[in-house]
């Protein structure tokens, strides 16, 4: 089985193709948010480099969120369009799962953080147990200080990964000190190879979808939460 995966949920525009044995190609561009112009040429390049055509791909996979709303729409629309053109199935993978998967068999907790603006991050807490990646705290949009409150109690080492580290590294280090570690550059961004790997697992379990069904998962704050924020005047100036 061949899986082609892309991720356009953050700054990185990335495409990978894997088969049952190995990673055939991975192309990652981590420079400027110009995914609508860049992702198709990247996919084309990845396919052509391996002498493959879209019809040779069995499953098309995408990081379906959370992340940049515009980026997610570009990714999901691209994959749905490609799959439709060759009548194949699609798989959506959580962006945060894929980021955590960038750090295989790592000790302690893995905490992917993606910048959600205004001191908030999209995050979840993961842990490897007997070679399986477990999620131990569900994905959420959290304020950085709430995340710190959750983590400060934990005895384990904590490895942060994702573009949130570019914004909040100092804040996290100041609060958590020596027990926090930061992923190296090579692992600190969305990589389509991780998306492909998780998609392959899902596909083998029969968890594919139709290109008519796959939609972004924005992980939006609930209206109640937003109203709470507004009340506590994090934003807006209704009373002005």
């Amino acid at each position, binding site marked *: 089985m061949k899986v082609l995966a892309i991720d356009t949920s953050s700054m990185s525009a990335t495409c990978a193709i894997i088969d049952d044995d190995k990673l055939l190609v991975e192309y990652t561009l981590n420079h400027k948010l110009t995914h609508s112009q860049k992702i198709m040429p990247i996919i084309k390049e990845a396919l052509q480099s391996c002498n493959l055509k879209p019809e040779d791909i069995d499953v098309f996979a995408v990081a379906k969120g959370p992340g*940049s*709303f*515009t980026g997610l729409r570009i990714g999901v629309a691209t994959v749905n369009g490609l799959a439709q053109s060759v009548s194949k199935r699609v798989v959506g993978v959580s962006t945060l799962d894929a980021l955590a998967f960038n750090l295989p068999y790592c000790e302690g907790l893995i905490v992917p953080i993606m910048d*959600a*603006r*205004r001191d908030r991050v999209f995050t979840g807490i993961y842990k490897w147990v007997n070679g399986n990646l477990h999620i131990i705290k569900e994905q959420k949009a959290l304020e950085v200080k709430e995340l710190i409150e959750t983590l400060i109690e934990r005895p384990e080492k904590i490895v942060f990964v994702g573009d949130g580290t570019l914004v909040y590294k100092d804040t996290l280090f100041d609060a958590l000190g020596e027990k926090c570690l930061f992923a190296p550059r090579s692992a600190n961004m969305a990589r389509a190879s991780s998306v492909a790997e998780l998609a392959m697992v899902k596909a083998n379990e029969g968890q594919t979808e139709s290109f008519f069904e796959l939609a972004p998962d*924005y992980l*939006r704050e609930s*209206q109640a939460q*937003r109203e709470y924020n*507004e009340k506590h005047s994090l*934003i*807006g*100036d*209704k009373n002005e």
Partner: protein
Amino acid sequence: MKQLLKINIENLEETEKIGYILGKLLTGGEVICMTGDLGAGKTTMTQSIAKGLDVEDYVTSPTFTIINEYEGRCPLYHFDVYRINDVDEMYDLGYEEYFYSKGVSIIEWADIIKEILPKERLNIEIKKNDSIEGREIIIHGNGERYINLIDFLSKEIHR
């Protein structure tokens, strides 16, 4: 902290000049809210700000697309929220990615989405007066960054 600048102008060229000077002064991350009646010159003002930001593309009103994006010295996000019925639609749009980015956001009909505008911002109100091309432009800002911006702008215009 607030600051106010009122300018009476007699023709379109002057609107263009003010927009251009303002655009030159922007460094990225600013939010500019534009209000004024139909035909007041909001889009003309935006086009001139875009020129000042070194945007080479032709800037058109995003009435139907709601947001258009341009590459200049920094990204320019041009919003026209006239067709937004509920601020919830702005959340669907992912507006935070733009308002709180390193790019410049210009929002036409900004008063429609008052609740979600950042507290610190530049407001530009364009009012028609008795003559056909004459306008009163009222610029006010909240926050240190925008107060300084208005200071610079006022000095540049009167130079």
